[in-house]
């Protein structure tokens, strides 16, 4: 299903992206906005099949909680048909992460800078796909712009796929120890692996501020 305001959004987004060079080859909207993984395909993000169909509009996400504290400790999370967040979606998300300047604040591979790191979880406003979708769509108080009227839904879901991917830092412990000997690894930096949507697949010895040795 196409939300009624998608046409407006597409025009704004295309206007914005018209400035960005070199995207034609990865731009999936050159055909129809309905192509690619269908909204409402039947996988939940945790792999469970979901019977629902017909896709997600922003309105259907109104019941998504941002927090994991609820009065009475009841599970209030709605059952949602999350679009397919596969490797292709993540790879497209990588391109949009650059073209919408997400990279400018969250930095290459989501290392964090003006905006918070996306390279590891948890996220302040929730790390489930629907939480990430809403954070992009609505914006967040300390500097995250509201992108909902600029980026088409389908592209936001591709960004969600990419952000979910890059946030899978290997966890060696429940918390995080920082010391002269921890952390032990760092990612191979982006200048040597520019096109991967799986940056945590490439790691090397932690450099402690010295030049990297890929």
């Amino acid at each position: 299903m196409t939300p009624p305001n998608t046409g407006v959004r597409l025009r704004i987004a295309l206007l914005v992206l018209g400035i960005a060079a070199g995207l034609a080859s990865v731009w999936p909207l050159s055909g129809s906005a309905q192509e690619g993984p269908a909204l409402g395909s039947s996988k939940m993000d945790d792999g469970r099949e979901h019977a629902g169909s017909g896709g997600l509009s922003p309105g259907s996400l109104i019941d998504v909680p941002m927090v994991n504290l609820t009065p009475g400790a009841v599970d209030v999370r709605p059952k949602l048909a999350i679009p397919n967040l596969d490797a292709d979606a993540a790879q497209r998300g990588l391109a949009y992460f650059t073209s919408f300047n997400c990279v400018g604040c969250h930095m290459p591979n989501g290392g964090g800078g003006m905006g918070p790191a996306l390279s590891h979880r948890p996220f302040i406003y929730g790390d489930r796909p629907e939480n990430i979708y809403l954070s992009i769509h609505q914006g967040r108080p300390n500097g995250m712009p509201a992108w909902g009227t600029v980026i088409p839904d389908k592209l936001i879901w591709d960004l969600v796929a990419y952000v979910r991917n890059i946030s899978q830092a290997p966890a060696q412990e429940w918390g995080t120890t920082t010391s002269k000997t921890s952390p032990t690894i760092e990612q191979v930096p982006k200048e040597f692996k520019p096109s991967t949507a799986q940056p945590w697949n490439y790691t090397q010895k932690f450099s402690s501020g010295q030049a990297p040795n890929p």
Partner: protein
Amino acid sequence: MVCSLWRCLPYAALLLLAAPASAEDAQAPTSHSPTSSAAGAPQAIEELVRDKNNWGMAAKDYANTRYSELDQINAANVAQLQVAWMFSLGPARGQEAAPLVINGIVYVVAPYAGPKPNQVFALTLANGDLKWSYAPKPNPAAAGIACCDVVSRGLAYDKGKIFLNTLDGYAVALDAETGKELWHTQLGDINKGETITMAPVVVKDKVLVGNSGGEYGARGWLAAVGTNSGKILWRAYSTGPDSDVLIGKDFKAPYPWMSGKDMGVKSWPPDKWKVGGGNAWGWISYDPELDLIYYGTGNPGAWNHETRLGDNLWSCAIFARNPDTGMAKWAYQIGPHDLWDYDEINENILVDLPIGNEVRKVLIHPGRNGYMYVLDRATGEVLSADAFDTVNTISSIDLKSGRPVLNDSLTPQVGRTVRNACPASPGAKDWQPSAWSPRTKLLYVPHQHLCMNFLTGDVGYIAGTPYVGAEVDMFAGPGGHRGEFMAWNPVEKKKVWAITEQLPVWSGALVTKGDVVFYGTMDRWFKAVDANSGKVLWQFRAGSGFIGQPTTFAGVDGRQYVAIISGVGGWSGAIAVAKIDPRVRNGALGFTGAMQDLPTHTAGGATLLVFAVPTNKRDTADIVAPPK
């Protein structure tokens, strides 16, 4: 000037009585001059800059020397320094602000974070009592528009008013006595990527304020706001047509390649100057004799230089302007067509130096590009430019043309990783201000020692979002250390002594008539060193790393104090205070690579530290009386 009769008359009388503090005056025991506020007449900044007991502007004086005539604390007794009192500013983000002191009151400003962003505090120097505080109305979204932590570099003072810049783009005037808001004026818009981080400077009843936003394609400007009215009197852009840049018939470029009409348009691809940066986020100097203000402009946007063919005037340049009209007298572009984010907003120190066979009125500019520039400050002509750190991006500065001679083998191309370019994007020296001693004739320069890998990529402009187009990865320069504190002789054009530091030296410097130099390190040491030899005389381990500006002043009892705010952060230190992953080297615009071990040395802080030497009567510096 708008003021009531009872307020103006005493001030006018005091102006007649006031005499500039000379070196001879300083020999006497420190005591307040008759221009102090005893009679209730607020001092003008033009007097305060010559008043050794007060520290009335971030850079101490219009020449930006950060030199104090006080000498109670000297090389012989500095080792006895102790904390007199402390104060917490609240948010544990980068503390880059200079504590000001005017007639026994300390004024400080907090970073733009926490429940009261950019909160201003007035404290009684004698006992640390909080006199008042002021919190501007916040717009928390501004935090997302700040490239390099949510810092403020300080306040300004003039005639009983404190002037504050807020990160979200306002200039505010407060009654220095009561903290009451007198006016506020919006100067910038975060939706256009504009913020304000610099310390304002007051010249001739005008608050001079420039914007930040070079990483957001925000067009740079410097504005003059009336200290009484809060009205914008002029605004000079760094790019665009001469009518916007305030270039008129009195303007003379020091070199022919910068001359011509509307060079701020012609040196860019069509319309790119509108999103071209060149922000005035650094220091402002003033020469009352030549009646010129001096300041530098920042990097052009985007960092990917292939998006902006041409020299990109007037980014990475120094302007000399008339403070009344804003009209430019001269401008010199240090970095035509910047490749590396070498902003040239660093301080311009105004001194008279023997060059050749004559004494010249010069401006010393420790360049972000790693060269120490000495310019004729009447004309902008480059007299000398010599490398002070490892530089391989620029082979030399051609003194005939004033242009840098580039190392073409390192020029970035989209998709090609440049390896080991030095200095890295923050330059061999960033905003952290130097100090000049007229006694030793040396410039004391805190700086970093970093190289980088650099990969440019496609980038599009979206208002209010970053406009960079480069993936950067910084690391320690040759030798493995990342910082240095050095003494430089600008006449002999050489380094006299240097202290290597494992981390970048991101704090400012202070030098005194006691021949002591102060600076702080990111690994939490506040140091006093001998101005002649560089020997460390004293050091204090604080709660958090230092990126602030040390200042010194005397209390109403004549006692000398030294102050600095402890609290790591800033571009270099954000990794210790923000959600930044030390394992992802390209974070923080590439600074993560060089600072990934900072969290093993320090966490954030927000503590104003006020130091003094114990007197004969007391065996500790603690001067706080218990409540009666």
